[in-house]
């Protein structure tokens, strides 16, 4: 992968300057072996997607086969609808989380008051509200408001899920913009809105894209709200995948194809954003 940031590779102290030692080679081999073992379930799934149904659950397992693309074609119709719903829920909630979160992150980062730390901590604390602690009233409320099985229902909940992440990540990026830039703008007569749109947003674009990737990944993979708040019309990919939860019919190859199509976008996003992933996953506590 090209995603490894080159400056990170350099920070590790090499044990020996001359060629790699025997123990070094062994450790590297062990690392590769473990990586293979960890990846194996996904590899096995990906292979099955290209097998015939008979090959997919053959005993003993089939390792050499002629790949087919039929499974993907069969999975596509149902997948397409779920994909559309997932995209709308993930992107819609990410946009809404940014609309609400960016101004807050800016105000907390550039105009900190005594209460700012408390506000930030409180926002993070909403992440510790398990979904099961709010699902019952939300379900009843959504039922009465006609939001069950709609895109808006999912967008509302995924925004709740991602808003603290957006505020924390963007706060962390925006505090890195030097105050001197704002001061210079103020001398030129910039108001708060100009500072926000003219300085903070353009300068934190890399942070915005990294945070957006993370928010989309989390919304994409979400299961609990999706299962409880949607049934058919707005059902995202997670609900689609859950239809394969019983082994009935044993459509393993088709299931694998659907699973590959479901996880591939997130895998690629995650590999791209892996450096920011750590910062986002730990809410900036580990950089």
């Amino acid at each position, binding site marked *: 992968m090209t995603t490894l940031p080159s400056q990170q590779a350099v*920070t590790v102290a090499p044990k020996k300057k001359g060629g790699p030692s025997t123990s*070094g080679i062994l450790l590297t081999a062990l690392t590769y072996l*473990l990586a293979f073992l960890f990846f194996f379930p996904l590899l096995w*799934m990906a292979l099955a997607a290209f097998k015939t149904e008979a090959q997919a659950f053959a005993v003993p*397992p089939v390792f050499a086969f002629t790949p087919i693309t039929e499974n993907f074609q069969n999975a596509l119709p149902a997948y397409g609808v779920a994909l559309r719903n997932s995209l709308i829920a993930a992107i819609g909630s990410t946009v809404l989380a940014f609309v609400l979160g*960016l101004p807050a992150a800016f105000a907390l980062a550039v105009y900190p008051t005594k209460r700012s730390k408390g506000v930030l901590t409180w926002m993070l604390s909403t992440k510790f509200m398990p979904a099961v602690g709010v699902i019952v009233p939300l379900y009843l409320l959504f039922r009465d408001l006609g939001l069950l099985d709609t895109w808006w229902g999912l967008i509302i909940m995924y925004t709740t899920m991602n808003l603290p992440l957006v505020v924390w990540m963007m706060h962390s990026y925006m505090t890195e913009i030097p105050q001197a830039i704002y001061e210079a703008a103020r001398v030129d007569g910039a108001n708060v809105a100009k500072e926000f749109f003219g300085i903070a947003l353009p300068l934190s674009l890399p942070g915005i894209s990294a945070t957006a990737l993370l928010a989309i990944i989390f919304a994409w993979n979400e299961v609990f709200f999706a299962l409880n708040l949607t049934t058919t019309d707005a059902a995202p990919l997670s609900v689609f995948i859950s239809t394969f*939860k019983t082994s009935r019919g044993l459509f393993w190859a088709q299931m*694998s194809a659907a699973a590959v199509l479901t996880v591939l976008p997130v*895998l690629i996003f*995650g590999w791209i954003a892996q450096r920011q992933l750590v910062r986002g996953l730990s809410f900036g506590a580990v950089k």
Partner: protein
Amino acid sequence: MTAVPISATAPKPKGGFKITPSVMIWPAMLYLILTTQVPFFMTIYYSFFRYNLVEPDRRPFIGFSNYLGLLTDSDNLKVLLNSMILTAGTLVLTLILGGGLALLLNRTFPGRGFVRSVLMSSFLIMPLVTAVVFKNMLLNPVFGFFSWLVKSLGGTPIDFLSAYPMATIIGMVTWEWTPFAMLILLTGLQSLPDDQIEAARLDGASPLQEFRYVVLPHWTQALEVVVLLETINVLQVFGEIYASTSGGPGVATTNLPYFIYQKAFAEYNIGVASAAGVITVILTNILAIFLLRMISKNVSPGGH
């Protein structure tokens, strides 16, 4: 993608109404209050009633009876215990595996970035995909790959999910969360200054001493982050259980989220589900308080 949030932010009130920093904080705060605090107070309210959606009009106030029922029934206590076992088991395993992998990756070797990408993959997988693939393709007692592996190694094929349900769930969740521990711990290792390691080596420290006296103290913060964030997230595991065991056999793999799901959406028992929800939130927040204390030490709003 990056352009979207900006243009979406543009139509903010401008004329006449002056944008001040505190006005900018309120939309986010109000949203979170409306979608988390308000429903949670409603959950607390419902938890004091005998309230079943099958009989929506009969809703007598019963005080703490739902809580008492939950905390005295042995099956329900098993659910609480399951949540703890799942969380603790996963935590121990992911720390050992993730820590080991982080140490292995904290070296320069060809293809390191590639290996790291491969190793982090399982964390990015949708929990339902994990469960469905493990249950059907890997753990199936007749056709599953692992069963075949056991058989070809001379063992008897195992129906993992009914013979060792909780251990199997822990295995699955560990597979998913090991990359999280690995990534955080690796980042922790990489912030260790080289000169500290070199100084320790010059002083003739053995690898074990080096780990005990240099690496471990430096790792503390990353370890705390892993322990607390993982605890809070694994307490909420739902999709893996929903799609693999449905909480069974019996209640062997039912944790709090799955229990609440069953009470609310299969039995329509809003009162009991709400009380269990409140218990889950209290449990989670007791743990979260530690996390907040720790993280707030490292945050200074507006600090440069």
